[in-house]
């Protein structure tokens, strides 16, 4: 059967497609959403209004946008460092959880003694907790050549069950009417809101600072250079004598540390205590954020805002239109799907069949 078209490698990557792929994917995502909402019998335009406009008409709404973007940004920045080096940590959700536990533990048991040092100590403990959890796949990969993809993913469920054990058992608030949650953190262990009337806290600055730092790390430092070479051409890294094990360790520790920081910022910020669920899947959504942001820090800042908007839109659609909450998952997934498809056209183009 004659083929009507075929893919052809471009002579040089297309600069236009590199820029246009993200907006194109967003447009296709909207089109898919339009079709899906029509099938569900909702007026798509009204639904879009509820989904994409209403949440952001108030100061509080904008604050929520920034608040939810913060953990996404932190996790995605850390993951992107690893992905550029071909280290596939997909367990940021677990590292976030352990970071939250470690930081909250310092706040709960040491907060009263630490005074104004409580918050810094908690943040450091959160980072170290995330790193420790990410060190497990790093150790197993470098010692026994296991796949960090599976190990980091499995550790997510262990982390979540460990959290569940703590809040149902030893760390449960004695005055909490048997609710599975820890006592509230003391006031000196809570992040203050930046703007009156919102829940945004200083974590946003940390995330933006980390974005700048991660750009500098990737573009200027020798360690960042070695990670990039390891990702682009492993044989060239071996030829130059860059240690493959060091790459794995560094990539996982950075990813784990950033996710751990995101975890403790959630607990010390909007949540204020430990409960069985502290993240609606930020660590997994961050994988999408990292790719939609094309693994570049600036792209990740924008992508995390976009993903955060989809979370909020999903919530308001759930409340006002009685749409299932999975609708935001559909939007997120179709965005990633179209993004990956559009990336193909950076290096390839479609040609009609030859006569």
């Amino acid at each position, binding site marked *: 059967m004659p083929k009507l078209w075929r893919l052809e490698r471009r002579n040089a990557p297309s600069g236009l497609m590199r820029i246009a792929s993200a907006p194109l994917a967003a447009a296709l995502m909207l089109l898919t959403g339009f079709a899906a909402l029509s099938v569900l019998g909702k007026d798509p335009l009204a639904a879009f209004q509820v989904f994409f406009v209403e949440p952001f008409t108030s100061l509080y709404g904008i604050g929520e946008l920034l608040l939810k973007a913060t953990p996404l940004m932190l996790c995605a920045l850390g993951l992107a460092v690893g992905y550029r080096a071909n280290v596939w940590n997909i367990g940021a959700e677990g590292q976030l959880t352990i970071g939250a536990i470690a930081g909250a533990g310092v706040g709960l048991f040491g907060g009263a003694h630490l005074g104004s040092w409580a918050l810094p100590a908690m943040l450091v403990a959160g980072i170290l907790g995330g790193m420790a959890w990410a060190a497990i796949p790093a150790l197993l990969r470098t010692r026994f050549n296991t796949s960090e993809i599976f190990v980091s993913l499995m550790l997510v469920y262990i982390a979540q069950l460990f959290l569940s054990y703590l809040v149902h058992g030893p760390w449960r608030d004695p005055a909490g009417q048997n609710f599975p949650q820890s006592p509230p953190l003391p006031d000196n262990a809570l992040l203050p809101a930046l703007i009156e009337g919102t829940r945004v806290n200083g974590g946003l600055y940390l995330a933006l600072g980390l974005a700048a730092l991660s750009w500098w790390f990737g573009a200027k*430092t*020798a360690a960042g*250079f070695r990670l990039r*070479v390891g990702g682009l051409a492993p*044989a*060239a890294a071996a*030829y130059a004598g860059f240690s493959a094990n060091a790459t794995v360790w560094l990539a996982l520790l950075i990813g784990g540390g950033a996710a751990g920081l995101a975890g403790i910022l959630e607990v010390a910020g909007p949540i204020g205590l430990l409960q069985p669920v502290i993240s609606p899947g930020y660590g997994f959504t961050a994988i999408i954020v990292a790719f939609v942001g094309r693994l570049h820090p600036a792209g990740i800042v924008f992508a995390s805002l976009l993903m955060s908007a989809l979370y909020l839109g999903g919530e308001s659609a759930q409340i006002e239109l009685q749409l299932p909450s999975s609708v935001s998952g559909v939007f997120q997934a179709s965005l990633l799907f179209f993004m990956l498809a559009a990336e193909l056209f950076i290096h390839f183009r479609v040609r009609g069949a030859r006569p």
Partner: protein
Amino acid sequence: MSDAFGVAAQAVPRLALHGITKRYGKLVANDHIDLSVGAGEIHALLGENGAGKSTLMKIVYGVTSPDAGRIEWEGEAISIASPAQARKLGIGMVFQHFSLFETLTVAENIALGLDEREPAPQLAARIREVSVRYGLPIDPAQLLHGMSVGERQRVEIVRCLLQSPRLLIMDEPTSVLTPQAVRVLFETLRRLAGEGVSILYISHKLDEIRELCDTATILRGGKVTGNAVPRTESNASLAKLMVGGELGECRLTPRVPGEVRLALAGLFSEPEDPFGSPLHGIDLDVRGGEIVGIAGVSGNGQRELLAAISGEARTAAAGAVRLCGIAAGRLSARARRRLGLCFVPEERLGRGAVPAMTLADNSVLTGGDFGLVRHGIVQTRAAREFARATIRRFAVKCGGDAALAASLSGGNLQKFIVGREIRLQPKVMLVAQPTWGVDVGAALVIRQALIDLRDAGVAVLVLSEELDELFAISDRIAVIAGGRLTAALPSAAWSAERVGLAMTGVFEAAPASAGEAHAVA
């Protein structure tokens, strides 16, 4: 130039190309090319890398289509839309890189490449018949992975011959063969030509072309620069057409070597690749101020040997590899570089250079410990300056220090990599296939650069499949076969035949002893 078409002029040519033009973006790969091959004619297509030979053959074989021009097959204008159509017309092609499966038998590999299905016993019988008739002995039931490169090439040729081609295209067929295997191949090709098969023979090896081919079309920069009867030309006159200027020649001035810089003692290794070759106790000394060449057909342990010296693989015993007197067998590749080792690997893209990085970044790849990284920070300006200086000194044709490594032609990238390593001022220089796939002009630059290093007192070890090259630049030569290495003896003690025999594992062919060798030298 003499009239090139004595044979083909009378009859209708089997294949005639008129004004073939093909553009890739701004690059004109083929610019109004005319070419004609008669029945039973062996026609050479001669040109440097990037001259447009491969593009032209892709057009003839239907892999790509020309932007302009006419193709005539036995007098009829046609267009060739696909390799399947080309095969149907009677055009066969043996590619430089084989497409064979290691885990399948010869017959299974051949069956996969045929356009029509054929019962296995019948196919096996035909394979046997064709292989006997043309002096290409192969066993249809043998598994591929145990076969040498020369044998694999036979499989590819037999696959083409089963379809009774009337035009056979051979793309650089001798680049992987021993001198003896080249003889056999030439005999086969002559027999085919005697039966009326036309052969298009792509190469840049002038001696071969003068020995084998009836006529030649010479390409340079996508244009035909001449037609010739190679037998009546000299290497110099052909090279002049190909390169567009006079070629210099490498010269080794006698020199007393200095102290031992690289010492291998009882080097053993198990291959990581299950089809690789283990090394069986390699002993070798390379002194400052000499070039030692290692000949051998690829897949005989070269990869393992290079990795063991470079540090990409570590040896069990630290003393098995000594660099400037220091036991280095357990050191990392980076630590060995700090001891003064520089290395040009066989694979340029993806190993010697990162394809998606700029030349400036690719300078940092191995130059990091030599001033291009300070206090953990990449010195961007120094790296760009380093890349620019390398580009200038070795006349690398490229878009400047910000050009991506992947955008350079093979020869220019090799000049850049060799240049980068030389500018890091090695004490020991390790080079694999220095001029593999590199055009004549660039090859000369690279060989001369290696000789200059030797004259400056550097210990140089070169692994190459090109014997002519090794004889041209080596003070001493050793041969590797089946993971064993002969003694390294003065080049004059070897003949091409003895090297060829040693390459097949017949080590008795090596000059009997160092004493005898020195006497000859």
